[in-house]
């Protein structure tokens, strides 16, 4: 039976982790390339206008996008964190901290918070990168969308990864034996 106290002592097989991370990254990239109506700010124009991508966008069902980016983003971040900190308390920090980070990135888009964040950013002194930073922050924070379903998607990603870890075999070559 899985015990919460055993959580920190378990670790996924590195090969499974890598495979899951690769699949999630491929799925995330695919969603952003063909599944969104507006192209990301950092995507080069030559990539946006590739015929194969334009063609795929016409067939991509809208329901496949929705909260999927939020889920995949959180899942990938948590996976990467676990790949770095596979055992011990740091594994817990990786999961909990990653979840809090993703939830924070969503909450800063809430209208009650986004204005204050944007205002603070406008006031930073100009160090040469001010305009670039402000553009990025304003595009994300002020023009962003706060959606409660995105929060659910993030928590589902955390739950899925937790279940994966809880149901996986411990890494016997690296497990820490308690006295």
């Amino acid at each position, binding site marked *: 039976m899985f015990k919460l106290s055993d959580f920190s002592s378990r670790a996924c097989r590195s090969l499974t982790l890598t495979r899951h991370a690769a699949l999630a990254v491929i799925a995330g990239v695919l969603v*952003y390339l063909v599944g*969104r*109506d*507006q*192209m*990301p*700010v*950092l995507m*080069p*124009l030559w990539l946006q*206008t590739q015929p194969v991508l334009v063609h795929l966008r016409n067939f991509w069902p809208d329901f496949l996008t929705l909260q999927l*980016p939020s889920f995949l*983003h959180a899942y990938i*971040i948590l996976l*990467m*964190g676990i790949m*770095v*900190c596979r055992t011990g308390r*740091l594994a817990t*920090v*990786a999961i909990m*901290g*990653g979840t809090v*980070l*993703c939830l924070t*990135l969503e909450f800063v888009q809430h209208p009650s918070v986004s*204005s204050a964040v*944007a*205002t603070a950013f*406008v006031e930073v002194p100009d160090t040469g990168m001010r*305009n670039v930073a*402000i*553009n*990025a*922050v*304003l*595009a*994300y924070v*002020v*023009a*962003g*969308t706060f959606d409660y379903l995105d929060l659910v998607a993030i928590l589902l990603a955390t739950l899925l990864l937790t279940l994966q870890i809880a149901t996986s075999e411990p890494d016997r070559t*690296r497990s820490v034996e308690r006295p």
Partner: protein
Amino acid sequence: MHATSFQKLAGLAIVWCAAILLAVGSKSYDPDPAPVLPPVMVDFVVANGGLIEFSNGTTDDSVNMANLRGSFEKPANDRITLREVPVSFDVNTSWAASVLPADPDELLRGEFSAAVTDPLEFGFDRQPAIGQIRSDFAGTSTLVTFSATGASVTLQIGGGVAQTQGFQDFRNAYTDSNRDLNERMASKAYRTLENLWLVSRISETLHREIEQQLQMFESVGLQSSLELECDNPNGTPAPSHVMRWSNDVSDAGNAGNGDNFTVNWRNCLRNADGRYLEADMNIENYQLANDTAPRMMSYTAEALSLFFAARELPAGSFPDENQERVTGRFIVSANEQ
């Protein structure tokens, strides 16, 4: 050798920084999608607040007494559309101009006034089909009736015999010094309307751009100029949009009725609309568009320089430098039905 806790924490910090960069970098520029809106008819007025001038570097046209009144159907879910919808001008549209002797020759000079006498439609790459305009010059009225196919027009000068000629032939008649002066002036009046039609589309574009930027700046407390990327993140030359309050009448830092702005746009509208917008303008007495139908919006614009590509441009290309630039003052208002 196992990684130390410090190394793991450092790795975790890198992962989290990557998460932030990924989240921000994958954000698309356009704001939230508009709520579901049904298709609506929009009535607009572009009135002359002063002299409007069109210049392409070789010829100059100035227009006064312009009162463009028209309408277009905005498709569903569009707040402000720049798409290829036809714009129809109704019988309340009138305009006038002073033709200078050097434009295009010494013979063509004087003042004309013109009006739409039967509604006609314009569009990008769409010449008028059906409809009629009247031009008045030196006491003589000339009626120009556009055929249903758009291929020809019928001219009736001073109530005389109606003559039919090709549309392009009539459109270029003002340059032909061998033509009847009334015919040339009617041609000039039509070409002026073509420019004024462009102004009506420009003002629609301006309003959309201003609204989008104001939505982004709402409550930020912007008191100094701020240079932002307009919707051309990969353009060359670098796109920019600088907007600043010049007189915040309504509320400190919030966009409200009566506010004045100055705007400077460079190489915008390439990403979302495939156009090209470059402008330096003063916007006065801005009236917010309400969120619920019927929406009304208005402002007074003084264009110090305004260059707007009339047609969509392929990615990486630039508009014809000979296309007219617009300067002058015009008043815009639009109502949805």
